[in-house]
């Protein structure tokens, strides 16, 4: 079957985004990218992907909104409470044996998961010895993450998730409510570094003990999935932990032998002991 004009346009648009702005979406799973680009095209009132390409090439102001369409993830604090419960009950006992810890949330978007882990680590008495990295390719999302301010209407869900994750305190201890927003405690942020980092093109930046990267790999094609997992494998300290999304697996990965199941049902892996 011959390639459709629309698909040619998408390929050219992704190439243009890469050449002009250095964001590489060329190896993302195409069906989702196409959906996101279609929404961007409609909201930016372009009649075709070629027109969208013309606009982003000649008007840099159009790129930030396009980037948001391409990258923004929806998340929650303590999303999938069972995952956080497994971290709390099964991973934390090992982490407690380290004098200092580094945690990396890759693809952190608005930072919900970084704050969730910071709260969890505080509850478990590990806060003072831990440094957290939250990375994403969308600088606009990182600005929101830095602020740690979330819509108040999400707090009921966050609170319920936190409780179900085995939370030992009340979530309300960590934020101040006002003007329709929940402002999270600045003290949580003291040990968090939010930074721009791409799993597609950047290198490892630190040795870490726990990586959480959930519902990010599903957006990549097989090659980039392998590249990302390769970075994780390299970044993990001896016997470090990697948590993926509930429907993500290393089964088909090039690195399947470097990481072993630790909490299988929650997709938490542990770096193997290699002699």
């Amino acid at each position, binding site marked *: 079957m011959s390639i459709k004009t629309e698909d040619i346009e998408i390929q050219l648009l992704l190439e243009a985004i890469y050449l002009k702005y250095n964001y590489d979406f060329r190896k993302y*799973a*195409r*069906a989702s990218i196409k*959906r996101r680009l279609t929404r961007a095209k409609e909201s930016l009132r372009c009649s075709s992907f070629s027109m969208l390409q013309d606009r982003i090439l000649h008007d840099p102001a159009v790129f930030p909104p396009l980037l948001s369409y391409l990258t923004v*993830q929806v998340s929650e604090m303590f999303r999938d409470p069972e995952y956080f419960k497994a971290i709390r009950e099964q991973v934390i006992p090992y982490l407690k044996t380290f004098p200092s810890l580094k945690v990396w949330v890759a693809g952190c978007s608005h930072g919900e998961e970084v704050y969730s882990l910071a709260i969890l680590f505080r509850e478990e008495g590990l806060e003072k010895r831990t440094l957290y990295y939250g990375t994403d390719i969308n600088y606009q999302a990182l600005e929101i993450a830095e602020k740690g301010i979330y819509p108040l209407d999400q707090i009921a869900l966050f609170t319920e998730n936190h409780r179900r994750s085995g939370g030992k305190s009340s979530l309300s201890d960590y934020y101040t409510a006002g003007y329709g927003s929940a402002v999270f405690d600045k003290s949580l942020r003291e040990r968090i570094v939010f930074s721009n980092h791409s799993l597609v093109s950047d290198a490892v930046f630190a040795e870490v003990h726990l990586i959480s990267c959930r519902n990010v790999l*599903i957006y990549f094609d097989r090659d980039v999935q392998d590249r990302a997992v390769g970075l994780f494998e390299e970044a993990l300290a001896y016997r470090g932990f990697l948590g993926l*999304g509930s*429907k993500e697996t290393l089964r088909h990965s090039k690195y399947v032998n470097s990481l072993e199941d630790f909490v299988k049902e929650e997709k938490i892996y542990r770096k193997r002991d290699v002699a």
Partner: protein
Amino acid sequence: MKAVVIGASVGAVEALSAILPPLPADYPLPILAVVHIPPDRSSVLVTLFASKCQMAVKEAEDKELIRPGTVYFAPADYHLLVEQNGTLSLSADAPVYFSRPSINVLFESASDAYREELIAIVLSGTNSDGAEGLNAVCEAGGTAIVQDLASSLGCEMPEAAMAACPAAKQLSLEAIKEFLMEAAYVEGVS
């Protein structure tokens, strides 16, 4: 024909129970299904239909190659999409019309991949998910089918689908099953 996509909500189990179990183990098309179900009940459908069906039944996995003779259910809380290269993708993008998985997302991506070689079926349900997707299937020249109201526990979804895609065939569950057999065997498989 290359594939069948099905979307269902309230009344899904009853409707699918009339359609899927009679299909033979070597049914030559893959069947991809989105059923709205609470996140904590995700594996129930697979277990239920694996015991009733002759075809293989499984939860769809990310990057999995789509195979004939297999029924794939979208996992709870993820969208299911078809890639042009014949594999499946999952996405955690925002719900579409409050639905994740969304029938529209499956239908639109499958229509994009299979064009006129796709059969899309909207079954019983009480929302309007699937209507836009079915329209995309019609526009691409695919075959659109909607469950008749008489057998639907929830009529809103079939009604919305018919309104969005008046060219769709409105069939009883028995007729849908017959159609699937004929479409796969009589017209041949490309």
